């Protein structure tokens, strides 16, 4: 493997890890619980900014060319953990406003609007996270380790993989437990779930906060790898990439959405890199967005369950009575 290719590969692997965290997070909210969180990218962004300002130190550093709040230098892995905490807290606030009284389609609209508002606020209140220029020159975590540049790349891949593993164990516990079943029931019929004693608002808020925290962690992992973050990184359409990955991979299936993360943001985005530029400059990049949207539509139309559909849960023991002995009046419908 040439060094250049190793760099490319390790970078892709970190992106893949971040995207996997992203799809698990949004899948908990959208795929499992049915919350149309069109503001998803905002939670990743908040995590990224949090991890950024908690790693950069005071904003007088580097000649004071960046302005931001909270500048401190915390030891690893605190910035990433706090990224999760802050994003989770934001999710709690947003959730209390948007999830308590509103039904799904209105929720979707509110989320989209919140995402756009947040972007405008961060762009214009420059003291918050350095405005449109964004944060840059964020020092590498664990930078004091005696590693070669390429060695550090692999080290970061390992860190990302470890984060994914821990998050997976959590996500799997949610989706494989009766709690996950209650969440899916809420998704399929909110009123009926409520009429059977499920506290739908509490369930939704819980999963919204958990998903938000995972989104924040993904942002933390990403920003500390690329060392910069700006409003350009989190336009509201970025949420649609994650959502498309979930739809393509298989809504509600943790492995399916992983495959979606590999196919849509990673493979698809990389493939377009190799298409020769044609037409006006920027045309290929613009087409990419169109194709992502088309991809979501095609899947929703022809394969709404995705490549690896949600698993059908079977239980040990099987039916009490063999089908042959049945007299079933319901069959006559």
């Amino acid at each position, binding site marked *: 493997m040439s060094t250049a290719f190793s760099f490319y590969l390790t970078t892709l692997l970190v992106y893949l890890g971040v995207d996997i965290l992203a799809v698990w997070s949004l899948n908990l909210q959208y795929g499992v619980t049915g919350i149309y969180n069109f503001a998803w990218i905002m939670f990743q962004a908040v995590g990224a900014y949090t991890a950024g300002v908690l790693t950069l130190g005071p904003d007088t550093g580097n000649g004071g060319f960046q302005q931001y709040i909270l500048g401190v230098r915390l030891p690893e892995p605190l910035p990433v953990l706090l990224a999760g905490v802050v994003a989770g807290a934001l999710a709690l606030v947003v959730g209390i406003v948007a999830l308590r009284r509103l039904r799904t389609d209105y929720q979707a609209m509110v989320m989209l609007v919140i995402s756009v508002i947040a972007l405008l606020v961060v762009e214009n209140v420059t003291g918050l996270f350095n405005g449109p220029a964004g944060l840059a020159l964020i020092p590498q975590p664990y930078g004091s380790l005696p590693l070669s540049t390429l060695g550090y790349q692999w080290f970061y891949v390992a860190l990302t993989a470890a984060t994914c593993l821990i998050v997976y164990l959590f996500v799997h516990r949610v989706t494989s437990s*009766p709690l996950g079943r209650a969440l899916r*029931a809420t998704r399929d019929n909110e009123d009926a779930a409520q009429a059977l004693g499920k506290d739908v608002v509490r369930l939704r808020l819980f999963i919204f906060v958990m998903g938000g925290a995972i989104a924040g962690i993904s942002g933390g992992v990403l920003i500390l790898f690329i060392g910069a973050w700006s409003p350009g990184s989190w336009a509201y359409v970025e949420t649609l990439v994650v959502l498309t990955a979930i739809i393509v991979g298989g809504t509600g299936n943790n492995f399916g959405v992983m495959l979606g993360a590999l196919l849509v943001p990673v493979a698809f985005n990389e493939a377009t890199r190799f298409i020769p530029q044609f037409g006006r400059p920027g045309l290929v990049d613009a087409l990419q967005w169109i194709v992502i949207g088309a991809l979501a539509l095609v899947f929703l139309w022809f394969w709404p369950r995705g490549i690896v559909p949600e698993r059908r849960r079977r239980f040990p023991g099987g039916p009490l009575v063999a089908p042959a002995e049945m007299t079933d009046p319901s069959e006559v419908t």
Partner: protein
Amino acid sequence: MEQARESAAPGEAILSVAGLRREFGGVWACTDATFDLRRGAITSLIGPNGAGKSTVVGIVGGAIAPSAGRIVFDGTDITAMPPHRRARAGLVRTYQLSSEFGRLTVLENLLVAAPGQRGERIRTLLYGKRYWRKQEVELLDQARILLDRFAMGHKEDEYAGNLSGGQKRLLEIMRALMCQPKLLLLDEPMAGVNPTLAQAIEGYLADLAAEGLTMLLVEHELGLVERLSESVIVMAQGEVIATGSMPDLRRRPEVLNAYLAG
């Protein structure tokens, strides 16, 4: 299921509804609903279309907030209680339109309805499967016994969304039973069901009543109402206009008028 129903002597009122009113944008769907339901019996709620029956079920179930009135269930004023807390208290309803969890299997539809599941607590995420496995096995047995009783055992792994209309009606009832009701509100459980299955459902309801389950049945088919319930509440134009036994009600002019005029 059984012990929950024996918390008080049969005969006294399990549900008292007084002066329920509800307006929808200037239209009074319910102007005065006052009635008691006796424990351990099937009471039917009848009336022409638009009489306000579903509104009353909605208000009692907690999905619709009343403009005025008071609901006392099992000794507790539940007028302001949210629907999920009413269900936990034992007041469970079914829907006129099937409300299955379509992307859950039949068995999962039943399991999810069981109250007080350890595996739904947030603590589960710390302790893992060992925290809820034992209870899940018990629930699985309960659910399969119920499936067997309703002759749906062979459908346990089917997605509820793929069931026929009639099977969905059965699922609706089984799921409500899994929730361990003290009072079951059945909003037209036979709506859109073929006669054979309707007969089967009637049999199931009669059996449940014989076991002591209290039910409020909203139904249009008066023959069925007469066979299943001793006590009938008649509503018309948002009001309770009569209560009594079906043979008695058939002779009352106000009931006949409401049906002929409605």
